[in-house]
């Protein structure tokens, strides 16, 4: 799949934002006054910037409000609802932390659950697609969830939570790559089933239907990345998991540690998300002789 910058930024930043908001809402940061205001502002900022980035890949963004209408069937519509509902719901908690209003923490805990639910709806936009076998399994929502939790814990400056979440994230990221590598073959789609000609004999492309690239090829058949996939996986893993883990465990807790760990984790998360798209093969590639599944 084409790794569009808008979608990578959307999923990474909004995931990080909602992860951080979950920690703030649950009261695990313990800031008050203007410090609390600044932290909540960062959380809201990340979530909102991420959501706005998603609008940039729309062909007709002026109609974006219509995306709220089909929550009965569409994960994308549910995501729109979940994100707005969560941001609105958490507003009194943020005000309370800032101004010391004493709003009950139970409200915040409910909001934290809503944050995680929002990240879940984001992940299901991808995990629901049978056409992209690498995404279409349990590992995708869990991996998205722990990216949000690990990033949120780093920003929250909570050493124990950050270390645990990063370790789990590392395991899940590796598992998602491993499982993903075998998914295309496991689903069983082939050029034979795509054309229905597989029962007659072996099928190969004789001539392409068009001489120039088209929307399908630009959007869904992305090959360049696979050459460097292993190197990029190592880089993504090192930056997203290992380096911030070392920083969190090795340096004393404080704003500098948070900034340094985030500065390492964020590019790692972006690289991992870039790979998430670039490595994913869509079954439509079969019609063009782009075989999937290694």
């Amino acid at each position: 799949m084409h790794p569009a910058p808008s979608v990578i930024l959307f999923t990474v930043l909004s995931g990080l934002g909602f992860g951080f908001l979950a920690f703030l809402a649950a009261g695990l940061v313990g800031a008050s006054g203007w410090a609390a205001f600044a932290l909540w502002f960062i959380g809201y900022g990340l979530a909102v910037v991420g959501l706005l980035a998603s609008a940039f890949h729309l062909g007709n963004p002026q109609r974006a409000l219509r995306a709220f209408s089909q929550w009965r069937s569409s994960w994308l519509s549910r995501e729109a609802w979940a994100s707005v509902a969560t941001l609105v719901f958490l507003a009194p908690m943020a005000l309370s932390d800032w101004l010391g209003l004493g709003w009950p923490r139970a409200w915040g805990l409910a909001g934290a659950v809503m944050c995680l639910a929002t990240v879940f709806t984001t992940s299901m936009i991808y995990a629901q697609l049978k056409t992209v076998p690498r995404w279409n399994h349990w590992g995708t929502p869990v991996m998205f969830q722990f990216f949000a939790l690990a990033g949120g814990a780093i920003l929250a400056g909570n050493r124990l939570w950050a270390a645990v979440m990063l370790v789990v994230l590392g395991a899940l990221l590796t598992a998602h790559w491993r499982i993903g590598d075998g998914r295309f073959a496991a689903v069983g789609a082939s050029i034979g089933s795509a054309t229905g000609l597989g029962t007659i004999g072996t099928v190969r492309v004789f001539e392409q239907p068009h001489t120039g690239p088209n929307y399908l090829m630009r959007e869904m058949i992305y090959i360049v990345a696979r050459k460097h996939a292993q190197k990029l996986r190592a880089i993504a893993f090192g930056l997203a998991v290992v380096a911030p883990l070392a920083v969190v465990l090795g340096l004393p807790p404080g704003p500098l540690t948070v900034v340094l760990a985030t500065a390492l984790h964020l590019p790692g998360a972006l690289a991992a998300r870039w790979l998430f798209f670039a490595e994913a093969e869509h079954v439509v590639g079969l019609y063009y002789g782009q075989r999937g599944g290694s």
Partner: protein
Amino acid sequence: MTCLPAKTDKKLGLVIDLDTCVGCQACVTACKGWNDQGYGAPLSDQDPYGAEPSGTFLNRVHSYEVTPADTPPQIINFPRSCLHCDNAPCVTVCPTGASYKRTEDGIVLVNEDACIGCGLCAWACPYGAREMDAAAGVMKKCTLCIDRIYNDTLPEADREPACVRTCPTGARHFGDFADPESNVSRLSRDRGGVALMPEMGTAPVNRYLPPRRKDQAANTPLAPLVDLATTGLAGWLDRMLGKI
């Protein structure tokens, strides 16, 4: 609206005969021509006369080489367009309700006025049936020429999809799969009509008729030539090279 109807009154769709298709691309051209002026935003082209031409098409004709175990390879032309699936994943993923499946005839359509151009429906389709129009920013797909098939101002012979109407070899057939005695139902039954990528669970309506098995000539007229014994210089070379 993007929830799928439990049942549609009719199941309009196509049967495509891969034995008859000659890969002339007439259906591609007819489709593009009709949909430049009919339903919704016209199918646009980018840089059509330049170095990197690209455009929106609702129908593409591939060519495959199929090699059976016991016969020589054969070339099969393969038109690919929307299959108007019963369980259309492109419809349920749509966040705006622009994508829908009609209860009366099962046609999968896009209401372009509601389409935000997010492209998720094209991702959900295994068959590459949907293409985003780069000029209009909305998703385009086969409408089964809904503006022809119900159009009383057209002569009756023209009230079928442009690709079917134009096919010079009669490889494309249009009809109602819900009626077991319709032309398409009978064709599909008699010739073993195939559904594409059944493992995707889309329950496509369109069917492809696999090419009939080719006859095999028992004895090729050139067979005696193969056993010709070489003589003279060629024979000497043949023997010498055989020893190396």
